[in-house]
């Protein structure tokens, strides 16, 4: 959205603060736009998503998703009333922060909504949202041309808050690991099997609950030690490298065709 709003041009190429963010916000030049649309957003997103992962393992995923959607939509409202670059930048950073709370709980919900036999298809349908979002983003240009960039941001924000409320009302948080093999993790760690006979009257072993910090580090360790995860992430890094680069430079490439 910011790419459309920042440099929106009227048909006669005239600058108008009502339609063009770069004119309305003093000092919002191309270098600051590059910072805002790229590194500033991605860096905060990439750091926060590491913490949102552990939050989704320990908190209600429905509430995380709903409040994240509402809060990142509020950043659209704050952008719509921004008067300085600092205010726009703060809203953009908060957008990256709150958006980071979408992916991990969403994927975690998919795991518990769908059994392994259809989970890849479920992930594929979830990924459809990315393409719908891309298609809808082109509609933003129509919205800006009709109501100006401030109202375009505000309308998008209100729609997002409404969707957040729908998530709050319409989604149920299923039991975690409901399709996982029935293994008592605490006993597995102690070498106790489901079939082991317990002596009558023997004290049930007490397992200390893991702290959030231990779970957080444990997640990293599990990812690193799990060869499948390690190589999938490594391969995905190169695919994202290609995908981001193509998406970033494709516009310039096709512009050369005139």
């Amino acid at each position, binding site marked *: 959205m910011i790419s459309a709003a920042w440099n929106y041009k009227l048909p006669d190429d005239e600058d108008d603060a009502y339609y063009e963010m770069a004119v309305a916000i003093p000092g919002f030049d191309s270098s600051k736009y590059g910072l805002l649309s790229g590194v500033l957003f991605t860096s905060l997103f990439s750091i926060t998503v590491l913490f949102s992962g552990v939050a989704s393992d320990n908190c209600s995923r429905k509430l995380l998703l709903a409040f994240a959607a509402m809060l990142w939509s509020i950043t659209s409202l704050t952008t719509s009333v921004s008067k300085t670059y600092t205010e726009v930048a703060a809203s953009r950073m908060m957008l990256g922060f709150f958006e980071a709370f979408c992916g991990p709980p969403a994927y975690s919900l998919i795991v518990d909504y769908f059994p392994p036999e259809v989970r890849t298809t479920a992930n594929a349908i979830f990924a459809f949202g990315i393409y719908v979002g*891309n298609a809808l983003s082109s509609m933003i240009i129509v919205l800006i041309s009709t109501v100006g960039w401030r109202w375009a941001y505000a309308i998008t924000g209100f729609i997002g808050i409404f969707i957040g409320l729908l998530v709050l009302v319409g989604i149920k948080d299923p039991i975690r690991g409901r399709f996982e093999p029935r293994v008592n993790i605490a006993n597995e760690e102690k070498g106790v099997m489901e079939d082991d006979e317990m002596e009558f009257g023997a004290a049930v072993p007490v397992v200390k609950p893991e702290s959030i910090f231990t779970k957080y580090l444990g997640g*990293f360790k599990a990812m690193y030690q799990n060869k499948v995860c390690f190589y999938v992430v490594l391969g995905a890094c190169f695919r994202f*490298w290609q995908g981001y680069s193509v998406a970033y430079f494709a516009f310039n490439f096709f512009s050369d065709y005139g």
Partner: protein
Amino acid sequence: MIGGFSSQIIAGYLSDKYEPTFSRTKPFVCITMSLLGIVTNSLCYMFTFSFYFSMTFLFLTYFLAEGWMSPAVAMVQATIDVRYKGVAMGVFLSVTGVFGTMGTLLIGAIVDDYHISA
């Protein structure tokens, strides 16, 4: 949009259908789609003859190569401990996001330094 979604659905369908009989279906789908992506990207951007030729292979890039992510995510979901599924997806999204951004910065630097027309 059509190419990308079709690719995702095809990858998801093939992975779920053949996984019970061939346990390495998901990695096979990811590898095949990624290799097809090299061919279609090369024909789209490197060996271009016309705008329409490029656009055709741009569509084929999305249609044949975009579906890798769903099986990849499903592999992480299937193999990681239930306690760490959220952290695992967090790490996945974080590391790939950083790597992707680094890609644009590095290629941007190469384009600038060698004055390559993008």
